[in-house]
């Protein structure tokens, strides 16, 4: 504890610098916009540090959802009645908001999905239908979430393509030399996370994409952990496909986006068949709808799309750059404060990171730590974070993961540090 109460000069100087960088960010006002943050957990103030799993929702998103079902609900693209027109207009307006948010060239490139997993499965399945050939190679990294591993394993199983995996270095970054060596004339696709959900590493995505393109390979990006934390420009990145989830960006669950370059989406065969994705249906020959509807079979998550647009409006109002600076300040402060705890091991301590600190303390099992922290009102994630290969790489059973969002504060990090110290007192 004495180390915490008497921070080193270094600690003080660093904190003051980042204090200046977000001096205009009114975190208390942001917090007031999120009703759930006033909840008590086990009679304690909730400290919500599980944002990499899902974020909380601002009142404007919750109100949009209830307003849709109270006043606007109808199916889209089908009816000529007023409600259906209104719902369709709001639904397509959401597509426009999302397009602008990621700077896509056109609405046709913005495909609505159920989430990041849905988007990756769409691309992997479509590529498996006559495009991938035996012996083709798909490159992923050793740091991927299971949902950017398993769809490709399945694609390889169906097509005879081969999966190659980029090594992870001890500091929690990718071995880019190894990556370059994996790129050959056989490489058809590189599928890579923008930032790691398990340890927070921000990958040099632009360089990774450029290298893939010079090897004439396509690039699919799992952007789930990047979009909440920085402004993403899919055109500047030159990503071929980019998937992300609404619920990690302060929007509802069960909704997500797949961006794809228009010519590539045109080239891909449809994923699921059903209503809305067709132009004409007959038993002799069915023709498919234009983009993006070709990939949107069935009634979509209409309320989810509209409420996600409300989340984007909210973020734009605060400013993505202000959010990024605030969160970077939290990361810096958190690394410093947690780093002062004896026995602290931060996984991937050498990497540039976005909003995630994944750690272990001495021999304390993450399950024990998570259980005690929960009793103190602190929600962290413990376990393998759906990245078992990465845990095996570091030879650990799992970690304790604190992940930050736009409404988190330094005093909450202080509460976490105090909580971890208390857990150490019992278990270390």
């Amino acid at each position, binding site marked *: 504890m004495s180390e915490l109460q008497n921070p080193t000069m270094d600690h003080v100087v660093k904190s003051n610098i980042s204090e200046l960088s977000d001096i205009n960010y009114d975190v208390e006002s942001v917090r007031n916009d999120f009703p759930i943050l006033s909840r008590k957990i*086990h009679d304690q103030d909730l400290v919500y540090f599980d944002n990499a799993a899902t974020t909380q929702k601002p009142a404007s998103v919750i109100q949009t959802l209830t307003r849709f079902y109270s006043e606007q609900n109808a199916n889209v693209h089908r009816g000529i009645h007023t409600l259906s027109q209104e719902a369709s207009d709001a639904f397509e307006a959401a597509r426009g908001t999302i397009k602008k948010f990621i700077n896509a060239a056109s609405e046709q490139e913005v495909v609505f999905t159920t989430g990041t997993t849905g988007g990756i499965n769409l691309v992997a399945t479509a590529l498996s239908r006559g495009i991938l050939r035996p012996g083709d190679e798909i490159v992923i990294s050793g740091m991927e979430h299971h949902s950017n591993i398993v769809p490709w394993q399945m694609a390889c199983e169906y097509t005879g393509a081969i999966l190659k995996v980029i090594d992870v270095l001890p500091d929690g970054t990718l071995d880019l030399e190894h990556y370059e060596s994996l790129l050959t004339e056989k490489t058809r696709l590189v599928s890579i996370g923008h930032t790691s959900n398990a340890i927070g590493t921000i990958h040099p995505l632009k360089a990774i994409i450029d290298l893939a393109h010079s090897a004439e390979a396509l690039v699919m990006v799992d952007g789930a952990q990047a979009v909440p934390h920085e402004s993403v420009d899919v055109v500047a990145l030159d990503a071929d496909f980019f998937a992300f989830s609404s619920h990690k960006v302060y929007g509802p669950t069960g909704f997500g986006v797949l961006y794809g370059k228009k010519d590539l989406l045109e080239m891909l065969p449809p994923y699921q068949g059903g209503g809305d994705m067709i132009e004409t249906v007959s038993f002799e020959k069915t023709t498919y709808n234009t983009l993006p509807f070709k990939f949107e079979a069935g009634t979509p998550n209409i309320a989810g799309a509209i409420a996600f647009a409300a989340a984007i409006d909210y973020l734009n109002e605060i400013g993505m750059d202000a959010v990024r600076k605030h969160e970077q300040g939290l990361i810096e402060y958190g690394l410093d404060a947690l780093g002062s705890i004896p026995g602290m091991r931060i996984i991937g301590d050498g990497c540039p990171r976005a909003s995630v600190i994944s750690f272990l303390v001495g021999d304390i*099992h*993450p*399950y*024990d730590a998570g*259980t*005690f922290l929960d*009793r103190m009102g602190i929600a962290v994630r*413990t*376990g393998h974070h759906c990245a078992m290969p990465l845990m095996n790489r570091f030879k650990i*059973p*799992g970690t304790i993961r604190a992940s930050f969002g736009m409404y988190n504060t330094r005093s909450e990090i202080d509460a976490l540090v105090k909580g971890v110290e208390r857990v150490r007192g*019992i*278990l270390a």
Partner: protein
Amino acid sequence: MTAVQSIAEREREIVEEFALFDDWFERYEYLIELGESLNKIEDEYKTEAFRIHGCQSQVWLRPDYRNDKVFFKADSDAAITRGLVALVVRVLDGLQRSEIRDARFDFLDDIGMNEHLSPTRKNGLSAMVEQVKNYAREDASS
């Protein structure tokens, strides 16, 4: 007259012990202490054959059949789970198979630990309870 306590008696004893503590923190400390005194499975048996598959913490459990009674040795890599395992073993150890099969573990609710028995906690405890009952069903000679 019998020297062996029934499940109900054993459970009541545990509930009374835990009632001595005022707050959750002390109860957990006591639980972890109980885990330390668990009759631990030998390292050589911490193998796949005796491992209970939980998601986050691992549990190992080995039955020892004597006549129609079952004795258990167990362990876990997480301290809280080890404590809970110790409670379950304490309630069931050395009982008749039929008694083990019918055990309900309601006492976990009374001591505020019921949440850990939920399969969604992914700590291996609920799978362990299933396994304990399976062992009690199995043929003693197997």
